[in-house]
């Protein structure tokens, strides 16, 4: 279908094709510098989040679940009424927001990375099979892609989660299930390209098995665009997890997540806006960092 093909070349975050463009030396330098800056800032933001998540596994200023109604809705440190030891303020139940933001990084990173692994593996496998073998396998996979694409992703996720129940693992599986399509399409497209190359034909003529050709010749050649898409997919899945938890169908409130904090924070934001601001800011910074990193990788 022309639709799928064009969308692939459009939405696929593959390296920019500078076809026919004569790029001057100054321009190349400028671009390198920009890409370097993107990788640096993006990498720093991501590293910081990973560090915070790691630290929060062993230490947070306060236990993230520690309640004390006597210190309910304390403001952040610069506002009158703030208390030492609670620099970002507290929520309705008197829990320390800084500690909860730190602990929330764990869930976000876990969901983001694990769901990409799940979706990536499923999409990679199906896309490879479709692109390599063609025929009815390809038709079947591409029709599945069509079906998936005409289902609104968030709605699908909500429906499945309503069926399977809340939980970190369920969210991972659902988001993996929703995002396999983009991998399948890109992998199929690049497999089609690689399959026709001389060295693949040569290997086949020498009697290599399908498994060997796929492992040795096709996989290494289609990995770079997949890595770029995976990076950006981590950020979109972090956003999706937050949205689902915000709607109250994602991760149960017993696990600290930024989306869940927002869900609780929105009910009190007329009284204590900081409850809704911090978790959103945390999501924004991480997602921004990952997207910068993805951009840098794709333009390198």
């Amino acid at each position, binding site marked *: *279908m*022309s*639709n*799928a*093909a*064009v*969308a692939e*070349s*459009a*939405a696929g975050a593959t390296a*920019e*094709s*500078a*076809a*026919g*463009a004569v790029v001057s030396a100054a*321009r190349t330098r400028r*671009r390198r510098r920009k890409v370097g800056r993107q990788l640096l800032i993006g990498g720093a933001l991501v590293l910081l989040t990973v560090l915070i998540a790691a630290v929060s596994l062993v230490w947070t200023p306060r236990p993230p679940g520690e309640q004390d109604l006597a210190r309910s809705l304390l403001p952040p440190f610069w506002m009158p009424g703030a208390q030492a030891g609670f620099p970002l303020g507290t929520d309705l139940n008197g829990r320390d927001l800084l500690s909860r933001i730190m602990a929330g990084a764990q869930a976000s990173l876990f969901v983001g990375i694990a769901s990409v692994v799940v979706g990536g593996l499923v999409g990679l496998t199906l896309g490879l099979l479709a692109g390599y073998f063609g025929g009815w396998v390809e038709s079947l996979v591409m*029709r599945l892609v*069509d*079906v998936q*694409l*005409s*289902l*609104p*992703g*968030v*709605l*699908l996720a*909500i*429906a*499945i989660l*309503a*069926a*399977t129940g809340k939980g970190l693992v369920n969210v991972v599986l659902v988001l993996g299930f929703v995002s396999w399509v983009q991998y399948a399409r890109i992998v199929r*497209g690049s497999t*089609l390209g690689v399959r026709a190359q001389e060295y693949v034909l040569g290997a086949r003529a020498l009697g290599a098995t399908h498994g060997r050709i796929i492992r040795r010749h096709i996989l290494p050649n289609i990995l770079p665009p997949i890595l770029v898409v995976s990076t950006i997919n981590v*950020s979109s899945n972090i*956003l999706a997890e*937050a*949205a689902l938890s*915000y*709607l109250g*169908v994602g991760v149960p409130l017993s696990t600290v997540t930024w989306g869940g904090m*927002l869900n609780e924070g*929105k009910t009190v*934001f*007329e009284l204590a*806006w900081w409850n*809704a*601001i911090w*978790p*959103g800011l945390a*999501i*924004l910074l991480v*997602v*921004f960092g990952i*997207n*910068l990193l993805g*951009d840098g990788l794709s333009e390198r």
Partner: protein
Amino acid sequence: MPDRRAGSLPDASPRTLQYAAMAIYLVQRLWQSVLVLLAVSVLSFVLIFLSGDPVAALIPLNARQEDVDNIRRAYNLDQPVAVQYLLFLQKAATGDMGESFRFKSDALSIVLGRLPNTVLLACTSMLLSMLVSLPLGVLAATYKGRFPDVLASSVALFGISMPSFWLGVILILIFAGGMRVLPASGSGTWQHLVLPTITVSAFATGLLIRLVRRSVADTLGQMFVTTARGKGLSERAIAWGHVLRNSAIPVVTVMGLQFGALLGGSVVVETVFAWPGVGWLMIQSIEARDLPVIRAAVLILALFIVLINLVVDLLYTLLDPRIKLGARAQ
């Protein structure tokens, strides 16, 4: 799909051939759309079936077993899932998607009643996205690597990184809470539309700016642009006259996909602003386990998305006559 372009017809003018090819393509695509919708209906039916016993949510805790059985029978819930599905399909073919458990009236009418609100929000958001992203994208591409590009690209990056519900909450905080100039929820006047529209369009705008930028930059590197420069045309004339049209195809594709995503994905934003669209209806129906309404909403949204994809494919031929309908990719 077999290549059945009308090339083998004898004695036909090229124009006739083109129309014949288009007609065949349309029939094929419509047929495929029906298959996709069927698959969607199976999937949504099974998923909802898996989500547990709806009767439990319908009846008071102390109901007699007899009444429970009656309700089960009335909604065919005592049958195997395959039979339930076929019964559902038979009725759905006549436009009857069952009666809402919650509102005690026709599920399809309820969804269709909410649809204009969702479509309206999707349209205003799409419009705002285009108005912002087209100029910014072209600007970024023509000044690639310089200040306007850095600015537009940063705006785009923020757009796609911002959690939409958070943006919604902040907008409510500022404009409804602090300044009290716009309503925080509900619908009816244009003021109600402003904040949800901005919230929904943020992501699409970011995506489109990046896409327009990349697409225009690619086109600027091609030979006919060099030719146009050689003829002494101004950069602005080249950008708007030559480049935009040639950059339009990937942009139109993603705009189409994005419009579909806006229809389905405004669930979250509709919930934030209590906007009475299909998405909010669906969240409420899931909470109330109102199966007929969930099914009707999923199917209607899927139908829309399939139709939009079809329209996008047809638009290609208008934008670029080199694209032949029905020709296989790659």
